[in-house]
């Protein structure tokens, strides 16, 4: 593992001392390079397509799985299919993410398709970070797909972050929820330069007492553009709340397209969206605390994306 690899892994998965706690699988330039399994968590290479299956035994408590992907080869188009099978009443943290280092002129791309199958009563905290770096003109492209299937009593909390260096991304997240389930998504995106980010959420509330809360906070600066599409369908007694907040700067553009569909009289669905520049009064308050205008702006953005 060289310095570039270590830095990418640190950025996306907070790797310390070149290793991870718990089970892990590191993928570099389209191939698995390191793997560790535990008594409760097994990782198996798929035979039909590129990717892995992750099996978490029932009643596994408080274990961590890291499955980072790094790309340092310019011009590579890596597609990976990872499936997570979470046993009954298990409670685990899964840390994924992709970092691309591109110093050359060819585009580098990673499309990660992640499917989660949560059995009854299981809980997952899923953390996903996307990051790009390098001096080349080749684009850094990331298109993650996340599909979540929750069985009775299961919950999945997803934190998705893309703060730096990704030129183009289409992020699709889909949730299919049975009874007494909860799917919480928090997304943070910052774009700059000519970057382009598109987010598509689709959640089906199929079981009684299923609920979802989607919070998207984004900052579009310079000439970057973002689009946020969300669709929550309440097919029974259920609750859905989608909140999209965006700060625009310079020539940044943001489009928010909400869609909430109630197919049952007991479905309770809310969509909130707000787009605007940083409020002058916020800058002024922080300047009265001794911050310059630039520092104040940064503090507001850091807080917003925290």
């Amino acid at each position: 593992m060289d310095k570039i690899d270590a830095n990418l892994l640190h950025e996306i998965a907070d790797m310390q001392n070149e290793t991870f706690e718990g089970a892990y699988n590191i993928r570099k330039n389209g191939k698995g390079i390191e793997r560790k399994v535990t008594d409760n968590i097994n990782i198996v290479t798929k035979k039909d397509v590129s990717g892995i299956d992750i099996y978490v035994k029932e009643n596994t408590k408080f274990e961590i799985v890291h499955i980072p992907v790094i790309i340092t080869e310019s011009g590579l188009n890596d597609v990976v299919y990872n499936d997570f099978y979470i046993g009954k009443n298990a409670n685990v943290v899964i840390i994924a993410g992709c970092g691309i280092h591109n110093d050359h002129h060819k585009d580098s791309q990673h499309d990660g398709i992640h499917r989660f199958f949560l059995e009854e009563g299981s809980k997952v905290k899923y953390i996903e970070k996307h990051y790009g770096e390098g001096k080349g003109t080749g684009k850094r492209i990331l298109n993650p797909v996340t599909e979540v299937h929750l069985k009775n009593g299961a919950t999945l909390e997803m934190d998705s972050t893309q703060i730096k260096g990704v030129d183009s991304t289409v992020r699709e997240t889909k949730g299919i929820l049975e009874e007494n389930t909860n799917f919480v998504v928090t997304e943070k995106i910052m774009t700059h330069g000519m970057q382009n980010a598109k987010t598509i959420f689709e959640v089906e509330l199929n079981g009684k007492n299923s609920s979802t809360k989607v919070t998207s906070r984004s900052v579009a600066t310079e000439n970057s553009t973002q689009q946020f599409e969300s669709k929550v369908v309440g097919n029974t007694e259920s609750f859905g709340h989608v909140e999209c907040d965006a700060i625009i700067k310079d020539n940044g553009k943001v489009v928010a397209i909400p869609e909430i569909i109630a197919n049952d009289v007991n479905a309770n669905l809310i969509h909130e969206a707000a787009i605007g520049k940083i409020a002058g009064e916020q800058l002024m308050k922080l300047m009265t605390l001794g911050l310059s205008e630039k520092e104040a702006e940064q503090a507001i953005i850091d807080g917003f994306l925290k």
Partner: protein
Amino acid sequence: MLEIKDICFTRDNKKILDHVNLNIDTDKFVVITGPNGSGKSTLVKIIMGITKPDTGKILLEGKDITNLSIDKRSKLGIAFAFQQPVKFKGITVYDLLKLSSEKEINKNEACNILSKVGLCAKEYVDREVNGSLSGGELKRIEIATVAVRNSKLTIFDEPEAGIDLWSFQSLIKIFEDMRKIVKGTTLIISHQERILNIADEIVLMKDGKIEAKGDKEKLLGQVLEKPICCKLGGSKDNG
């Protein structure tokens, strides 16, 4: 310590401030009062640099600060509590206190400051400074952000504005204890008798001018006779 020299400010053909001259001495607790529209808020905003005067000068400890930016004035030792506290998304009370303080503060120190302004610290320190807080809570946090700065000059722009009577009843005690919380000179815009009562000096403004300035003993009677002062904060009888 603060000299305001011949400040004029006109907007929409209305003279908001008309040749205002005022000297504030070190370590005094000064209350500016006067009817709505008399120019009080504009004057303190000009002192902080939020509003630029058309003419005139402001000197802080002899240094001309008229053309300095807000942040530079802050660094020279002026703190300002807004009439309408500003709300943020994602920034917690602790974050804001860290940004406010000149030196690094840990959570315990932040909690101490919150306790001084009457907030149960543990409940508030990690909360976001957003619309989920009530007007009274936001006011107290606003006071905490200026109190933590230990500035030479601390300005409060009508702290009683925008909160209900019951919240103010409990907030007023903080201003009575202000001398223990805020060091240096305090300049506060208020109509409340209980705040006027704790002043060293009172400045009475009317129609963009300083109508009177003097010791509380001299001016309190004159101010209270006018209908601008409000007893809602509690009179001597019930205080």
